[in-house]
Structure formats: structure tokens, C-alpha cells
């Protein structure tokens, strides 16, 4: 489904991604982790073309992301993405947040889009909040709306960039629960996250990045039981202490 081949990216002289290669098969859940600044966000943004890269190739469902002829908007409309800071549109009601792209991008009619939006809100447990504005919801609620907003586009796969790291601890689980459910339904997911509990429960594979390189790319069992690199050892030791 997602195929990343030898991707290199740099800002001026600064190399952010070096020879990154990995694949996410249909129905697979891949967790990407690594220290801060290692290039995780950059890599995941390359997947839907939010960040350009200088060499290598990425294809999503057979479509080449780096190709100038690719209609990126069309591609992105069926690749869902969830951000660290939710990024709901603050001037629109929750219902509108869910329907706007359905109508303007997919061309669905408004009534249909609203029904679909409400169904998804119901699914993330927030139907009663449809008329509110994003600023009136808690962080965890906003992130669930953001997931629903992405799902409303009927995505073929989902990208998550640290969806829980801006949340207070007591709200993390409500978001992880929604993600777990999605994974169990067979959604293809690429998640940047430091939630190792989630990774252990849900992921099929773990990709570990350091200094712009993919250092480990293994089944979750192999990664957690016997990480091969020293860096991954240290990282796990640090993160599992908590």
C-alpha cells in the first residue's frame, strides 16, 4: 500500500532523511518511533506529499508521490492524516469540520456528507457535540473529531503523527482506543507515536529512526524482545522506564 524507497531529503546542507526504505502492506499497522528530531514527522509528511524530497521514491497504492504529474490533492483526499495538534478548523462547527472536505473535495452533496459525519461522530462517541466549535472541546475530544474527519473521506490508509503527545495523560486512552478499533477493522496505518503499549498491542511492525535513518524495521516481537542496535536499546530503556 505504502512503499518508501531510498528517500533522501535535506534542508540546505542539513540532511533530514537518509536512504529511508520501508513498506506498509494493506491492513498492516506500522509504528514509527525514535528520538526527537530523528525525522519521523518529516518521513510521514513525505508520504502524502506535504514535504517534498530530493531523491528516492514513494508510492501510495501504486501512485508515485514525488511525480510532478501526480494530482496530490486527489491522492491526499484518500490518505487520512491526523496531527499532533489536531488542526481542526477553529472557525467551523464540528459538523462542518466533518462535512466541508466531503462536499468540496469529493463532491458529495451536503445532506449525505452530514449524515456520514454524524455517523462517524457517533462512532468516536461525540455525536452530542456536533454543533459545538473545536475550541469548546477538550484535547482528547478534538483529536477524536480529527480522526473522524479523516475517516469521513473513506481513506485507503491513515497516517498519524504523534496523535497523543499533545494530550493530558487521562485523555490519551480515549484516542488510543479509537485507533485500536480502527486497526482491528483492518485499516492500513502508519503511526508515529511513543506509546509503546499501543505498539505492543496493535502494531504488526515497528520502524525505529535515528538521525534521519531507518535503523530498525522489524516485527514488533523482534523489536521489543531483541532490538539489534545500541540506539534502539537505549531508546527502549529510556521510554519503558516510565
Amino acid at each position: 500500500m505504502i512503499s518508501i524507497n531510498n528517500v533522501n531529503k535535506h534542508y540546505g546542507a542539513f540532511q533530514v532523511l537518509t536512504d529511508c526504505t520501508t513498506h506498509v502492506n494493506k491492513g498492516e499497522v506500522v509504528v514509527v518511533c525514535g528520538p526527537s528530531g530523528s525525522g519521523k514527522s518529516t518521513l510521514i509528511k513525505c508520504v502524502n506529499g506535504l514535504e517534498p524530497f530530493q531523491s528516492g521514491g514513494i508510492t501510495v497504492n501504486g501512485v508515485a508521490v514525488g511525480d510532478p504529474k501526480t494530482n496530490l490533492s486527489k491522492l491526499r483526499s484518500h490518505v487520512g492524516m491526523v496531527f499532533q495538534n489536531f488542526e481542526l478548523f477553529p472557525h467551523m462547527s464540528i459538523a462542518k469540520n466533518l462535512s466541508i472536505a466531503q462536499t468540496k473535495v469529493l463532491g458529495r452533496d451536503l445532506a449525505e456528507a452530514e449524515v456520514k459525519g454524524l455517523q462517524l461522530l457517533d462512532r468516536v462517541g461525540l455525536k452530542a457535540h456536533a454543533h459545538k466549535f473545536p475550541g469548546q472541546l477538550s484535547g482528547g475530544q478534538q483529536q477524536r473529531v480529527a480522526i473522524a474527519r479523516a475517516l469521513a473521506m473513506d481513506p485507503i490508509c491513515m497516517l498519524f503523527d504523534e496523535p497523543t503527545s499533545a494530550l493530558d495523560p487521562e485523555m490519551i486512552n480515549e484516542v488510543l482506543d479509537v485507533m485500536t478499533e480502527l486497526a482491528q477493522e483492518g485499516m492500513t496505518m502508519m503511526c508515529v507515536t511513543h506509546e509503546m503499549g499501543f505498539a505492543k498491542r496493535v502494531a504488526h511492525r515497528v520502524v525505529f529512526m535515528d538521525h534521519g535513518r531507518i535503523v530498525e524495521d522489524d516485527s514488533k516481537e523482534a523489536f521489543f524482545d531483541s532490538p539489534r542496535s545500541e540506539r534502539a536499546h537505549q531508546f527502549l530503556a529510556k521510554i519503558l522506564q516510565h
Partner: protein
Amino acid sequence: MAYNWNWEVFLQPSATGSGTYFDWMVYGFKTTIGLSLTAWLIALLLGALVGVLRTVPNKLLSGIAAAYVEVFRNIPLLVQLFLWYFVLPELLPTELGNAFKQSNPFVQQFLSSMLCLGLFTSARVAEQVRSGIESLPRGQKNAGLAIGFTLPQTYRYVLLPMAFRLVVPPLTSEFLNIFKNSAVCSTIGLLELAAQGRQLVDYTAQPYESFIAVTLAYVVINVTVMVLMRRVEARVRVPGFIGGK
């Protein structure tokens, strides 16, 4: 102090014979309002366009927009006015220039003033719009693009509606400025409020009353605009948004 206060001077028939001195004031008041509102329309439209262009990824477009802003910001308003009024008609193709010079003097003065104030203010509006867009979290643009909007759609549905809400308070002060700045147009003979004030000083022997009345008229405009803009601000407030209160 041996000054004879006489507020009834405004009820006296004016020196030109038509109407009273109060009518002079009303005429000036109307001109100030008409000029400021038409110039404001130009400033909003052009300013929004230029402000958006300053934030687009295309280097050429954003460069042109930046140059536009710098030119209109770094030349005094009075000098710009003289350039519009005295210089531009000379530089236009001869026929167009002559047509302008032969038109009604009021039309000449009003057109020059309107374009001058409109473009001068548009540069300021553009700066506010740009900083409004730039103050939005960077993730908003990505969120718009990620959901499948094209760049123009992202501007239209995500960035601009929010930026315009953020920009209303600073625009209020630009809107107030345009009324105040319109007084500069008295220098090319446009008979707006300040110019009528000067005429009243010359024609009546009551300088204090004349100037107090004109100054109060400006204060009234100021207060009215502020009250109106408060309403607009309340209207566009985003529920739950910090800074939107």
C-alpha cells in the same frame, strides 16, 4: 479674553449666498465620509489580494507583493497625493491626461484622493492580512492540504476565514485611520471637513467655533466607527477560540 463666542454663526447664510455655514459643514462631512468609504473598499480588496500574495510559495508573486507594500509605506501620504493629482495626469497618454484635466475639478480631486487613500491604506491592510495568515498555526495549512484541498481551496476554506477574523481588530484601526488621513486631501483643494473648517475660519470671524465643530465632527466619526466595528468583532468571534474570547 475679548473673544465673542457666537455659535449661531453656523445658522447665518454663507458668503457664497447658497445655504448656511452649517450647510458647508454638512457638505464637508459628506465628502469626508464618501471619500473614506470608497477608498476603504479599494483598500480592503487590494489589501486582501496583496496580503495573500505575500504568503504564497511563489517567489515572484510574493516579491511583487512585498515591493508594492514597501513603495506605499515609505512615501509620505501627502507626497503620494501630489503624485496622483499633479504628476499622474501628465504621465498618462495625452488624450487620457487631457480628459482628466478637463473634467470637473471636484471629480479630479475626488478621484485622485480616492485612489491615493485606497492604495496607501491597501498596503497597510496587506500587512495585517499577511500577519494574520502567518499567525495561524503552520499545521492548519498542512491539515487543509492533507484532507485533499488544493492550495487555493486551503486558502479559501481554512486560512482566509480564520485570518480575516483575526485581522478584524487591527483593521478597525486602519479603518479609523482612513477617515483621519482623508483630511490630507484638503491640500489639493478637495472640500472635505478639514478644508471646510479652514474656509469657515477665513469667512466667519469665529475661528474657535469653526475648529471646535470640525474637530468634534471627527470625534463623532471616530466613535461611530468604533461602535460599529465592535459589533463586527462580536459577530465574527469564534466560539472557544483563544483571542476570540
